[in-house]
Structures are given as C-alpha cells and as structure tokens.
C-alpha cells in the first residue's frame, strides 16, 4: 500500500464528480436534523464517507490538500464545546433546558403544534444548533479516524 496507490480511471472520475454532492447531502442531513430522521451523527457520517471515498480513490494524495489533521482536531474540540455550551445555556432552569424554544423572537423559536404538521424549519429551539455542533464533531472525528487508520496501517510512513 504505497503512497501513490490509485484506483482505476473510472473510480477516480466518478469520485471527482460525486464527492461534492455527497458532502452537500451530508450537510443537508445535518441541517434538517430536527425535522427529518437525520441529525448530527448521521450527517457527519455521510460527509466523512465522502472523505473516505476520496481516500480510497486517490490514496493519501487525495486528501493532501484538502484536510489538515491538526486543524480537524481543533474543529472537533470546538464542536464538542459548542454542544456543551448549548447545554449550559439553559442552566438557569435545568441543564440542557431548551431555552430558545417557543419564543418567536429567537431564530429557531417558533412553537410546534402537537400532532402531525407540515414541519416549519425554524422550530425546536436549541436542537438545530446542537445538531450542527454534533455534526461538526462527528464529521471531523470520523475523518481523522479514517486517516489515522490509513497512516497506522502503513508501517514505513509514520506521520
């Protein structure tokens, strides 16, 4: 598994075409976590699968320019702290209290009618923010796991 390992032309062209779409779809899943069955973790996994696809198709060269491991690690920490900060915002009444829900002034503040509804985007208070925080964390975390596995697997090139 030397570093200039690359897949066949077919795989490389398809990867070049689709990895942008996968990333966009991943972010879509993260964004609408509070409405659709998606959410932070699933969306993050989809996006990191795009990076894994790049890795498989182009070997480690594929990610050379795009992903800097240390930068990803700090992003992961930022995502985690953002999630916890959201939990602490509502500490006045209780930990993880949904402060923003049900007061229209705030971006995601509209109240949700009980029972089946057509699903307005700006509802569910702190939940969308939490989804984004978790999505960011999983996205960077999973990608650095994939990269670590690749580098770990190769004996001679220790990063």
């Amino acid at each position: 598994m030397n570093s200039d390992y690359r897949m066949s032309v077919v795989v490389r062209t398809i990867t070049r075409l689709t990895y942008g779409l996968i990333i966009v779809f991943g972010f879509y899943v993260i964004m609408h976590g509070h409405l659709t069955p998606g959410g932070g973790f699933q969306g993050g996994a989809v996006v990191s699968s795009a990076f894994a696809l790049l890795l498989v198709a182009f070997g480690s060269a594929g990610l050379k320019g795009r992903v800097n491991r240390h930068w990803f690690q700090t992003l992961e920490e930022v995502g985690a702290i953002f999630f916890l900060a959201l939990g602490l915002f509502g500490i006045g009444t209780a930990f993880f209290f949904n402060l923003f829900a049900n007061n229209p002034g705030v971006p995601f503040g509209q109240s949700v009618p009980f029972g089946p509804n057509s699903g307005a985007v700006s509802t569910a208070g702190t939940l969308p923010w939490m989804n984004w925080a978790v999505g960011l964390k999983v996205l960077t975390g999973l990608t650095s796991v994939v990269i670590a596995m690749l580098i770990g697997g190769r004996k001679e090139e220790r990063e």
Partner: protein
Amino acid sequence: MTALVPHVPALLIAVPLLGAFLAPIVGKLGRTTRNGFVALVLLVTAALAALLAVRFLGSNGSPILYVMGGPDGFAVPLPSGMATPIRIMFEIDAMNVFMVLITALVTLCAGLFSFRYLRDRSGGDLFYALFLLLTTAILGLEVTGDLFNFFVFLEITSIAACGLIGFQAWQKRAPEAAYKVMTMYTLAGIFVLLAIGLLYAEHGGLNMAYLASAIRGSVVDQVALTFLFVGLGMKAAAVPLHMWAPDAYGEAPAPVSAVLVVNSQASLYGLFRVMFTIYGGVANAVLLGWLIVALALVTIFVGVTVALLQNDLKRLIAYGALSQIGYMLLGVGVALVTIPTKPDFGFVALQGGIFHMINDAACIGLLFLTAGAAIRAAGTRDLNRMGGLAHTMRLTSVLFIVGALALAGIPPFNGFASKFLIYEGSFQLNPFLAVVAVLSSILLLAVFLKAFQAVFLGPRPEGASVGGEAPLGMLVPMVVLAAVVIGFGLFPGFFVERIVTPAARALWYGRDAYIHAVLGGF
C-alpha cells in the same frame, strides 16, 4: 454562585466533560498551563462532589431528583392516559453520594500524580482528555437515575478506559491488554443493552424508579436480570469473569490503574442498584444472597492465591485489588441473606461491605501510585530485577507499607475497620465465611510482604540505576491518600456514622423513598 447550588448534580458531569474537551485546546498554550487547567477542573469536580455531599446529608436523606432539561413536567400526559417519566433524571440518595465521594477523591489524587509521572511522555493532551472523560463517565455512572443513561455512561467508561490502557502503544503488551479488555467490555455492554431492551419492551419505561415499581418478576425480567448481573459482574471483575482485570490494571499507567479500580467499583454500585432497588421487591433474596456469597468467596480466594504467583509488581497489586472486590461482595451477599431474619447483623455486614469500598479505593490507589513511583525509579516491573529501593526512596517505601498494611486489614488502618464489620457480619451467617475472609487477609499480607521485600529491601541489583526518591509532585497525592487511609483507620466511627450508615440504609431500606421520589409526583 449560590444560584447554581440546585444544579450541582448536572454541573458535576458538565464541568469535567467541558474540561475533557478543553484540555487539548488549552494544551496548545503549553504543558504547565494545561496541567494547571486539568488540576483546576479536578479540584472543582471534587468541590462539587463535596458540596453535593454536604447538601445531601443535610436534607434528612430523601433522594434529590434532578430532571434534565425540564424544571417540572416529567410525565407528559399520554393520550393513552398512562403517564410515565420520560426525561432523563439524576436521582441521588446516600449511596450515590457515597460513590461520588470515592470517585472524586481517587481521581483527584491520581490526576495530580499523573502530572509529574507522565511529564517526559508525549501525547499528554489526549491523555488528559481521556482521563477527564473517564472521570465524567464514572461520575455519571454513579449519579444517573435512568437505566439507558447508565448504559451510555458504562460504554463511555469502557472506551475511555481502554484508550488509557493502551495509551503507551509503543510497549509490547499494552495494545494486547487494551484489545482484550475492550472486547470484554463491548461484550458486557451489549448484554446490558439487551437487558435494557427487554425491560423497556416489558414495562415501557427506562427510569430505574419506574422499573422498580413496575417489575413483577416474569420470565423476561429474570432473563434481563441475568444479562445485567453478568454484564455488570464482569465489569466489576467477579471471579469467573475477572481475567481481564490483571491485564487492565497491570498494563495501564499507574494513575490510570487507580481510577480503573474506582471504575469497577462504580459497576459494582450499578450491580447493587439493580439488585436492591430495581429487583428489590421481586428478587429471591436468599438465592441471590447465597450466589453473591459464593461468588465473593471464590473471588477472595482466587484473587489472593494467584497474587502470590505473580512476578510483575503491578499484576500482583491487581490481583490484590481483585480479592478486595470479593470482600465487598461478601459483605453485601451476607446482608442479602441475613437481613430478613437477623436485621441488625445483616445491616452490619452491609455497612462493612460498603465501607470497604472507600477504604479499598484509597488503599489500592495508594498502592498503585507508590508502585508507579517505584517502577519509574527502578525502570523495570519484574520483581526479580528490582530491589533495594528503600535506601533512596524512604517516603515511598513507608507509604507502600501503610497501603499494604491497610489493604491486608491490619488494625490501626482503615482496611481493618471495614473488614472487622465484614468478619463480624459474615460470622453470624456461617463461621466458614469469616474463616476464609480472615485467612485470605493474612495471605494478602504475605503477598504484599513479598512485594515489599522484593522491591524495597536488599541491595540494589548491580548495574541498576540508583533510583532516586519520587519527585514532590508525585509524593503529595500519595501522602494525601495515606492521610485518608490513616484518618479513616483512626476515626472509623465518625465516617461510618456520617456517610456509610446513610448509604447502607438508603440501599436497603430506602427503596420505597427512591421510587416515591420519582413516581410520588402524580
């Protein structure tokens, strides 16, 4: 600040978790700032634990309920009219406070020890992220009142513990130990999840108090009890499933081993919570009691006898820790059997078993830390190639003696105070139990005599390094633990009355109060 007092249970988890995520970022500013930051986080967590204890012991023992994310409403009126608690709740009674105190004490000392112990090793940031994550998960394990939340914290401890065991990946045996321990933890976690699934399918609720009131003892409940018993028993290192424990404690860095012992004690607490509270009304106490007594005897005996064989200092102490878990099980098993018939003796055994938890956590933590200092000075772990460290490491050898005598239950120290209760309680049930317990304590003293003689006495082997005294940064936490050991030893009455009796009473007699605190609301 006083406005945050009602939120202490949640802050107890949020502060170390925030510390765990901030550690790598603060680490970028340099090692000493990061160490200071981690020490601050550990101190604040310990202060929160003390605050929780003070606040709880004042409020005449009714469990504190802390509902996540909602001030009041926890039971949404479902259309079917059935109202069950749906939010994740932290429920804290005297037993939880007792366990939180143990965790706060040992993690604080182990954390302070690790600053100096791991100074010359790379990868410090990630070590402290995992260390604080492990602390958070153990505290969460001991505070939560929701069974699935208990499972999630159980899994976080598994992942964080195995990350720390295999931390020194360049060593030949650490990854192997971490792999084995992780496989066993995953297996245990999965069966606990299966049990939770069964209980949820059967009763529709995940809250421990709700389950305690809903369980009727059908076949499904018994099967779920089996999975929970085996899963948590394995994480608490009861004998037939103990084989991962010497690998885990032996290969992990010294401060991590001390915290791992507290981790198995937290799983032991989980086992007690399942048996006493959730299955309290239904369980066949005599059968369960005799089963635990049998398990305890085997754990004590095998733990001590195999400890005699070891030639690796840390594995020797690991087997010693294993047999101490047996004493806790013995105390509780005897209580389960005798309390229905002779309540006062059974209660004494229960107090002994629970008091032994904090004593053992302090002694074993002290022993692992002193062993870590000795190994760092001698450069090797093999007993045959160490020796004569006492010439230079005076204070460490004295602390090792204190820890060893306390663990073996020699009178002036705290080990004896709790074992005294266990001996008396188990003698009532059947003299044979007390005989095995006393003999094993003596054998344990012999084991630590061997360790002390091999490590500290005799001439330094030729060609070995001089082995200077441990630096101050490592001595202070050891002295703190030794102070706890001696303090609990000289004034057991004070501590038993303050924290152990309420814990034992909460565990045995407090089941209805535990359920009423949650379900009494409507």
